[in-house]
């Protein structure tokens, strides 16, 4: 059985925390370039150009794209033919987050819900663990800022409202969010499953590269329809008016209970940060 020492996990998580916060993905930069072409508002265009410049400065200077360097969300897939040695996996991940946030000059933004006392090291980490076939370990670090997370919602619709009910809920959510989640946004939608899985489906939809097509043609069509409708709202970059409110809509769906139609909308700001590694 292949062995991986836990210290490798810590080192990888540390690096991914820093890299995800300072290096915006190529797919996002390409989506910005397209948005600049399509935006009709001069203020909107100017803002999009500044976002490109912002990403350049962050990369060159090694400083975060955004000061809200987020709650560290880590997706781990462990191959069932891997043996992890040398300690506790979850603790190893937390240790990587601690090191990354301290050594990368990232902001620690995790606190007690009521006293608001900061934990001081950006832990605990939100960890989503999955066991998969194979002998590899995949790690994805996706720091999530508060501004866009606060605009996200889960709801349990009545099945009778059908696909139209889902569309209305998604568009309404983007509309009500206005300028708060730093548009242009990426809209992650989860449909089906149970209360908690639909939220996770929405979050995972945000990890799909921008510009990629949904493999399910029905969902690809739904994404396109939602994208077009959202971009008639007029919210625009930073909510100051314009065509480009969202860069993309990504939908994940699974079966639901005969009595339920759960829907989740996870709003992702333009600081769409995630980096991965396979060990």
């Amino acid at each position, binding site marked *: 059985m292949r062995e991986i020492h836990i210290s490798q996990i810590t080192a990888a998580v540390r690096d991914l925390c820093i890299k995800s916060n300072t290096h915006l993905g190529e797919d996002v930069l390409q989506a910005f370039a397209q948005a600049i072409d399509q935006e009709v508002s001069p203020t909107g265009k100017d803002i999009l150009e500044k*976002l490109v410049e912002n990403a350049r400065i962050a990369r060159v200077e090694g*400083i975060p794209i955004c000061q809200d360097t987020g709650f560290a969300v880590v997706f781990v897939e462990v191959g069932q033919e891997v043996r992890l040695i040398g300690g506790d996996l979850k603790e190893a991940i937390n240790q990587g987050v601690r090191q990354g946030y301290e050594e990368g000059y990232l*902001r620690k933004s995790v606190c007690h819900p009521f006293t608001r006392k900061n934990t001081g090291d950006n832990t605990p980490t939100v960890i989503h663990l999955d066991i998969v076939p194979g002998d590899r370990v995949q790690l994805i670090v996706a720091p999530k800022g508060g501004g866009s997370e606060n605009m996200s919602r889960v709801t349990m619709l009545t099945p009778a409202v059908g696909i139209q009910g889902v569309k209305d809920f998604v568009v309404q959510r983007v509309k009500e969010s*206005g300028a708060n989640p*730093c548009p242009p946004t990426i809209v992650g939608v989860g449909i089906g499953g149970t209360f908690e899985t639909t939220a996770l489906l929405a979050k995972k939809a945000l990890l799909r590269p921008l510009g990629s097509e949904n493999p399910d043609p029905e969902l690809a069509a739904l994404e396109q329809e939602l994208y077009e409708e959202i971009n008639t709202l007029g919210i*625009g970059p930073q909510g100051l*008016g314009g065509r480009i409110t969202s860069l993309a809509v990504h939908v994940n769906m699974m079966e639901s209970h005969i009595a339920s139609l759960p829907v989740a909308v996870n709003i992702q*700001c333009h600081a769409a940060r995630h980096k991965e590694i396979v060990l």
Partner: protein
Amino acid sequence: MSDAIKLTPPLSDADVESLRIGDRVLITGAIYTGRDAAHKRLTDLIQAGKHLPFEIQGQIIYYVGPSPAKPGRAVGAAGPTTSYRMDAYAPELMRFGLKGMIGKGARNQDVKDAMATFKAVYFAAIGGAGALMAQTIKNAEIIAYEDLGPEAIRRLEVEEFPIIVVNDVRGNDLYEEGVKRYAL
């Protein structure tokens, strides 16, 4: 786009009255940072009849919690945070002379009314452009509530810090106007 208006705090009533929604403004001079926790402490001081840790007359508060500074830099990334969380405290500070607020996202009616009554404006900075905006921040000094970490009150020395007027003293709102203009 028209040329940007250059301003240096403290701002007078006349400075504020001359601004209109959509105006691009470049601030040079000192501005103060503050988020929810600091706002709560400031309004608690006012209610207790005590002095504030800085002279607020004519000043601008920037809603930001910067990321830590790398050696040789004044701050890390320093873009705006969402403003509605400060809505409960902002009118009280305007009553005591605050002239400008910088953040992102819409304000509630109480805040807009207070802007008209006490003559103050609300500006938007580009949310998520923290690295870009940090380039215009030349110096940062904690002046109160160090225990709040990123939420401590800092005095920032800025040079041509870029913002846009979203709410003016006439009750106009660029978020509403902009959306109306571009909605299909």
